[in-house]
Each structure stands twice: as C-alpha cells, then as structure tokens.
C-alpha cells in the first residue's frame, strides 16, 4: 500500500456522481403523457372530494343539531350553506396549496 499514489479516482468521484445525478433529474422532469393524465384525473377527483366532504360534514352536523335542539329545518339549512362555503374554501386551499390558516406559502428549506 503506497500512500503517495494520487487520489485521482476518488477525487473525481463526486464530480462524476453529480453529473450522473443531474442526468437522472433531467430524465425525471419529463413525465409521460399517461402519468400527466393520471395525475390530472387524480387532482380533479381530489378537488371534487374536497368540495363534497365539507358539505357532508356540514349537513350531518346540521341534521344532528336539529335532532337534539328541535329546530327542524333551520339547522340543516344554515349548516348546508356553511358546509358548502367550507367546501369551497377547502377546494381553494387544495388548489393554491396554501396552509390551513391562509398563511403565505412557506419558502422551502
């Protein structure tokens, strides 16, 4: 084992690794048409579910409140509108990818 040998292969290794990795990243950035369609479909479905889920929760809450308070149609009506508003808010947040409290998007660390 001679220590005097030039550490050439290892010194260039990082460089080669970086080059290989950047090539890989470039490949990953061009998704096929299939996956683009699949993700668009998934995104659409996600927004749809986001819209409906809040409405379902709102109507359920209104119905339960009516059942216990005896205010038959009014709780349902009120919570229907609140639920649809919450659903739209959810959909908006899902689209803009903002956080819950309407905070500005955090810069990625």
């Amino acid at each position: 084992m001679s220590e005097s040998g030039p550490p050439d292969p290892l010194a260039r290794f990082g460089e080669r690794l970086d080059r290989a990795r950047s090539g890989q990243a470039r490949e990953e950035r061009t998704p096929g048409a299939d996956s683009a369609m699949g993700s668009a479909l998934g995104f659409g479905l996600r927004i749809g579910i986001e819209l409906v889920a809040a409405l379902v929760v709102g109507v359920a809450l209104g119905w339960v409140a009516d059942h216990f308070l005896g205010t038959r149609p009014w709780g349902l009506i009120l919570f229907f509108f609140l639920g649809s508003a919450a659903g739209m808010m959810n959909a908006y947040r899902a689209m803009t990818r903002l956080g819950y409290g309407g905070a500005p998007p955090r810069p990625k660390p």
Partner: protein
Amino acid sequence: MAVESRPLEQFTIERIIPIHIGSLDISYTNSALLMTIAVVLITALLVLATSRAALVPGRLQSIAELAYEFVANMVRDNVGTEGFEYFPLVFSIFMFVLFGNLLGMIPYSFTFTSHIVVTFALALAVFALVTIVAFVKHGVRFFTFFFPSGAPVVMAPILVPIEILSYLSRPVSLGIRLFANMMAGHSMMAVFAAFTVALGLFGFLPLAINVALFALEIVVTVLQAYVFTILTCLYLRDAIHLH
C-alpha cells in the same frame, strides 16, 4: 348464456375465525388477514433489508432505502426538519396503505383499503394525532387556527364556523378519497372482466381495456398511498407551525 355479474362481490367481508364476545363481533376476517400479511411483509422487508446492510445496496436494501428516502424527503419538504419526530408514524402509514393497496391488486386477494371503515379509521387516527400535537405545541393558541389572520373581526361569526367545518371535514375527505379510489378502480375492473366472459369470442376487447385498467390501477394504488401520506404531512405542518 347469462353470466351473473356482481362487481361488488369482491368486497365481501368473510369471517375466517369467528370470535364473538357478548354481542361484539371481533372475528378474524379476510380484511384482518390481509392487514396481518401487509404488516408481516413490511416488517420482513425492512428487517431483511437492513440485516445485511452493505455500502453498495442489493435489491432488497435498495427497495427499503428508496422507500425511506422517499418518505424522508416528503417529510422534509412538507413539514420541515421539526417533522422528523413524526417520521416513524408517517413512514408506517405510507407503507401500510401502499402494501394494502398493492396486495389488493393480486387476483383473488382482498383490498382492505377499499373499505371506508378502514380508511376512515386511519384518517381519524391522523386527525386525532394532528389535533393533539397542535394542542400540546400551542395550547390555547390552537383556537386562533379557526380565525384567519388579517381578517376583520366583524367577519368572525361567519368565518369561524366555516373554518371549524373545514377543519372537521379533513378526516372525511382523507378517508373517502382513498376508499373511493380503491373501490371505484376495483369495481371497474370487475365489470370489464364480466364483459369479457359475457361477450365470448369478442371478449378480447374488454380484456384489452382491462389490461390497460390494471396498469392504471397500479398507478392509482401507489398515487393514493402517496396522497394519503402527503396530506398527513401537510396537516402535521399546519399543526406544528399553526400560522
């Protein structure tokens, strides 16, 4: 030739070992069996992959490392470095949902994520955890969550109920999304499979569609596991950073 087509039959729960305690039915079902298989497989994969850890990873170790790095990056990008406290949980959720989805793709097996009970329970667990984390980290300040900063105080009577509803709808949308995707995909494949049998000679047409659907369904299974996990991460970020 009449072929009875029941595309929803595949979702039937069957009791393998019936266990009844009083009026409570806690039988070991096919759903529970698949969950056990998923947990055993995940544990086996990770234990085997890390038992002979090499600098240059083999196939198994590569799979485990890819899964780890994938979830680790997700946590780092979406929650931040503080989120690594919850990494074991996020990783477990991801692997459990992923394996549940993928095991369901094996013919004659059973997809436990196609049952809303399972997905909703998972979503409720995430929801409860996120709420507890927010309470522990912020105490009473948690309630400022329900009022967007910068909004006029006059709007509070309208905004606060909407925000609370929006918050409560999170486990519902989280649970329904996974359940609906798995159930819809699997029923669709069963419908086309029934067409294949019913059409006889021309059955190759729905068969071709089914081959394409199967590929799409595999994409959906992985994507839904990813979506479930990333939403968990986003909820955790909201709980940790609040505003």
